[in-house]
């Protein structure tokens, strides 16, 4: 079967206005301030694969997710789903084929609805159940699938623990049989044994139903388990994209290397993890040239002035780094 592209982002950007209140600006003569949360990001996801997005807090992962499902509008660029531009009028039916699992299971469930109604809502909205009996059966099946009991449908979200609520939102996202799921930290609220069950379930659904995932997580060990390919973001930009195996075994971009070195060490071998050098610069004033240059051990003059563009390297991986492209640094 050809690896056909399901979703494509072309030079996507999103700015936010984070100015101080109008009065302060006037009194203190301050200009408006805007923040480039996502800056020229391009990637594509093939049907049936899992692309993971990783990167430090605030680098724009959730914003990318929200742009894709249409919760934010684009400042620039295009997003194509199954070949059609999602900005086109008449693309609404396309959005129905995608669902999102949110980072925050608290804010995303309506507190006044019973869990069964929360899970049933997309089924009803899309007219996917012929009658009330079929609807109830489908909801019970979904709750069981995510490790809850059909009786749990009677309860309200506040009666559940954090991890149980996240399972409710997963059941809800699966309820309309989407082809494409955007998962923003779907398991970070779950303990490792439930996480293992959910990740195995997601993989099983992918194999059975041919689902495609965009998977956002801070946990690189989790990403290594679920992802076919991985994109690494830094300050709103995509710095490296590669096959999961290649990326973890032979990271090219200096930032990717730093992230992988910082993974907590469960072996407690006494080796403390390599502390991440420096801090993420403010996205309000990103450094000129390569945004990573203040923290990068390989930075030179060119890095401080000229912004590297993502280029495809032999083997199909993509990296935005002068040193990699010049051959100054190779594989680890």
């Amino acid at each position: 079967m050809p690896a056909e592209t399901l979703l494509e982002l072309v030079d996507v950007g999103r700015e936010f206005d984070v100015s101080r209140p109008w009065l302060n600006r006037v009194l203190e003569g301050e200009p408006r301030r805007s923040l480039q949360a996502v800056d020229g990001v391009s990637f594509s996801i093939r049907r049936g694969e899992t692309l993971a997005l990783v990167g430090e807090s605030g680098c724009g992962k959730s914003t990318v997710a929200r742009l894709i499902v249409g919760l934010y509008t684009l400042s620039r660029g295009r997003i194509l789903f199954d070949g059609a531009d999602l900005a086109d009028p008449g693309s609404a039916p396309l959005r129905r084929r995608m669902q999102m699992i949110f980072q925050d299971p608290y804010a995303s469930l309506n507190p006044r609805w019973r869990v069964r109604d929360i899970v049933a809502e997309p089924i009803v909205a899309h007219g996917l159940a012929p009658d009330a009996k079929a609807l109830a059966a489908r909801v019970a099946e979904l709750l069981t699938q995510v490790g809850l009991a059909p009786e749990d449908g009677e309860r309200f979200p506040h009666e559940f623990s954090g991890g149980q609520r996240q399972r409710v939102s997963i059941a809800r996202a699966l309820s309309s049989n989407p082809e494409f799921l955007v998962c923003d930290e779907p398991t970070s609220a779950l303990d490792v044994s439930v996480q293992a069950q959910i990740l195995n379930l997601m993989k099983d659904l992918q194999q059975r139903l041919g689902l495609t995932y965009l998977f956002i997580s801070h946990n690189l060990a989790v990403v290594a388990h679920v992802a076919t390919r991985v994109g690494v973001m830094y300050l709103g930009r995509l710095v490296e994209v590669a096959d999961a195996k290649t990326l973890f075994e032979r990271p090219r971009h200096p930032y990717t290397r730093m992230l992988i070195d910082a993974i907590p060490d469960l072996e407690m071998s006494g080796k403390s993890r390599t502390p991440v050098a420096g801090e993420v610069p403010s996205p309000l004033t990103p450094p000129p040239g390569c945004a990573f240059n203040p923290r990068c051990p390989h930075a030179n003059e060119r890095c401080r002035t000229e912004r590297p563009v993502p280029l495809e390297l032999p083997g199909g991986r993509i990296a935005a780094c002068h040193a990699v492209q010049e051959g100054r640094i190779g594989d680890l």
Partner: protein
Amino acid sequence: MTESLLSVRNLRVEFPTRRGTLVAVDDLSFDIAPGEVLGVVGESGAGKSLTGMAIIGLLEPPGRIAAGEIRLEGERIDNLSPEAMRRIRGKRIGAIFQDPLTSLNPLFTIGEQLVETILVHLDLNEAQARDRAVELLAEVGIPAPEIRIDNYPHHFSGGMRQRVVIALALCARPRLIVADEPTTALDVSIQAQIIELLRKLARENGAAVMLITHDMGVIAETADRVAVMYAGRLAEIGPVKDVIHAPQHPYTSGLMRSIPKLGEGRETLAQIDGAMPRLNAIPPGCAFNPRCLKRFDRCMHDRPSPMPAGATEAACWLYAR
């Protein structure tokens, strides 16, 4: 052992419902010494957050403490008036909750919320409080704190909001810190920074830290001892190295096996089959018995209490003598 800073004895938390009383935390006892970090792990729904809420006096009715005692530096705090408890919270106990969005008020800027909390607990004027707030934001790794302080919570990413909540909880340098999933929303580098901050508070101020988290990597790096909870009960407690590398309770062993490890590739993860029992259907005997591969007769009708097992204590009949 040194005098404990926090001591929890036979704690029981209940929810009365129309269909009977649900026992969410059942006969739970543990201590935390000054300067010590106790990690609390366990199945989702095991009662970790409720235990934390009971300690800080924020159980939401109808949930209530039905039995047991909680002592902070020797003084009982489980029976205090809401007013007295409010004074202790923030000043002597700092709380970091699992859900960053609901602990921040969306109508006020980050700075307004920090300054208000600082003014309540520290003897500073407004301008000093604002400086302190900027300092705290820098401490938890928010870039450009002097500008971001005037933003509203919805301007921040998930991880940044969590760091603000941490800054709020730490502003009065409390004696006990109850942190419920403080780093789940954070990536590894910020995580390391927050962990270092918590460790530093424990080390330098002799604070006790109760750290609830699913992240075993964080536990391995931060905690001195670990408590493992299952179905509202203590399954195992002991030094972090032993609980992670030589777990004694069958549930803990299963938990440790299901941790994804780098370099294992895309195989199916090991999982413990089945699910934790509903609170209204906890089996007699050991609560883990329906899923336990080592169960035997006694497990089906006798409830085990924590007993010495290897270098830890485990509530499991395998270790009865």
